């Protein structure tokens, strides 16, 4: 049995990709299952989906902790989440990270002969994860933007998965995409996704990455029931677990979600403040001295509303660069 974790961000289609992968395996007369990690995650937040492929019946229904393969749909996630976690103890891997302590390790649990399939513009030998594993890399965001017009990298990464692991053929992946995407999104969209998968298959490079990347364990505030104040009412406070209470979301770096970021042309800006009003995340600041606006890239999710509402086209959206 092969176990696969798909790491992505809400909206990139990790769940749909897991279903299409399972469907592809079924087309090869194998047994398969796919299911999401349920949570309150919104678009842009790190999410995971799971898939299992086997020659016989699958009786395990639990989450996957020691994956054979991981697929990472987002180019920045491998730097934030330890994707190789749990892959230790397998042929083709070396070193090891403490198990169970880090949630944010995409390498967590990668198995024997396992591989990580990553969305990145870098070649495999320039990738660094917590473990030294086999990786397949492809610039899926560029392919998705070319074929679909928006950065939904799920189908492209399935093509890359077929190339890297040879667990399923690219032909079955195409059938799986037509089956799952076709039913949910219509045939036209499914066909474009098949094209993205083919391009992903063609452009994937396979090699070994370097290991030893460290992911600091995040401390979580888990109070005892007696430690909770009445009514769970808490004041704004700084603790070893970070900020708690009112105003504490300021520590969330939502800027890591974006694919594009806005650039403001101070010369063109007429200081109408429409972008300032319409930014859902409060990233646009007013600069009265310059009669212009500034952007807080720590929070900017790259939705592009500022560029869209600007009456004088002073804001342009620029593709994010890895590095």
């Amino acid at each position, binding site marked *: 049995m092969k176990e696969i974790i798909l790491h992505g961000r809400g909206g990139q289609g990790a769940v749909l990709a897991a279903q299409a992968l399972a469907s592809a395996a079924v087309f090869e007369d194998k047994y398969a299952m796919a299911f999401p990690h349920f949570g309150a995650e919104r678009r842009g937040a790190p999410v995971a989906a799971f898939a299992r492929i086997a020659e016989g019946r699958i009786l395990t229904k639990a989450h996957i902790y020691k994956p054979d393969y991981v697929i990472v749909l987002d180019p920045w996630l491998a730097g934030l989440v330890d994707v190789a976690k749990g892959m230790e103890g397998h042929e083709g891997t070396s070193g090891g990270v403490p198990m169970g302590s880090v949630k944010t390790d995409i390498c967590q649990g990668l198995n024997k002969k396992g591989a990580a399939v990553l969305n990145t513009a870098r070649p495999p030998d320039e990738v660094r994860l917590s473990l030294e594993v086999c990786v397949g890399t492809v610039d899926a965001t560029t392919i998705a933007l070319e074929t679909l017009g928006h950065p939904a990298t799920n189908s492209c990464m399935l093509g890359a998965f077929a190339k890297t692991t040879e667990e399923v053929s690219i032909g079955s992946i195409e059938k799986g995409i037509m089956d799952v995407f076709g039913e949910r999104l219509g045939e036209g969209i499914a066909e474009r996704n098949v094209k993205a998968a083919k391009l992903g298959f063609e452009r994937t490079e396979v090699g070994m990455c370097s290991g030893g990347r460290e992911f600091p364990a995040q401390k979580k505030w888990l109070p005892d029931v007696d430690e909770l104040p009445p009514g769970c009412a808490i004041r704004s406070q700084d603790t070893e677990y970070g900020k708690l209470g009112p105003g504490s979301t300021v520590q969330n770096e939502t800027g890591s979600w974006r694919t594009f970021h806005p650039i403001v042309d101070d010369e063109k800006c007429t200081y109408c403040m429409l972008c300032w009003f319409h930014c859902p995340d409060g990233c646009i600041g007013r600069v009265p001295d310059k009669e212009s606006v500034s952007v807080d890239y720590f929070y900017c999710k790259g*939705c592009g*509303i500022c560029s869209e509402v600007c009456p004088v086209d002073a804001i342009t959206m620029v593709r994010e660069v890895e590095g």
Partner: protein
Amino acid sequence: MRLKLKDLPEENIFSSGHTACAGCGAAMAIRNIAKVLGKEIIIYVPASCLSVFNGLFPSCAWTVPYHHTVFENTGAAISGLSRAMKRKGLDNVTVVGIAGDGGTADIGLQALSGAAERNEDVIYICYDNEAYMNTGVQRSGSTPHGASTTTTPVGKLMKGKQDFKKDVPLIMMAHSVPYVATASVSFPLDLINKVKKAKETKGFRYLQVYAPCVPGWGYEQSKTVELGKLAVECGMWFLLECENGQLKINREPKMKNLETYLKMQGRFRHMDEKQIAELQESIERKWEFYKGYADLTQRLYSGSEASV
């Protein structure tokens, strides 16, 4: 005096770093509404998208007192909070309940109706994204005709929601409360001035804000504002204001481009000519009704505040 964008403070009352989707209409509405209301407020939020993206315990985006209990209680909880503030002598504190359209039109309707009927001194804000988005797009009373959701899918027999949108602002007008208004995130000055007027009014105030939802409606995330403008243009959303029984129409819809509005969104993609004609007819009827209703109430309630 009418409020302008430059009059709003720079400081956020609803902090950045919240986890709403990129391009969220609700987040856009709420952070600006909070800026107009100022710091002397208590916020109550029932189960909704907002209750999740404003931070799950112990994380919180609000820098003002924030209170969260169960889904159906908005009207009751804000009534209690408001009375407690009065009892403590804190008359300057405004109690604000912010709920989604599901928590307003369906689950919270009886508590809302009760609070309105008692004319509690509170502001109730409904951000209307036309379905239960928090749980993954299920139909609500506020979902428009024809929209595809997970509970009104497009199949062979039925294509999207068969029923029509519940008109909660009209229900609130029927409660004869001092202030009822509808606004949209795409009309900033209209929105902030309605919030200002609500803040300056005493008694029960109801505001319903049109807030497009990127994943639920299926459109390009940068088009939130454009979609809101189109909705008002084609008559899918009216900008209204009802003060002491007198209804005023703030913006006359052009009643065209309905198809452009529908085709921008995945939830309406399946709609054929017959369904679009049906929808067009229903919004035209609604528009005729509101025009007549505005004329009538202007005549009936002119001049007197006590006549409500």
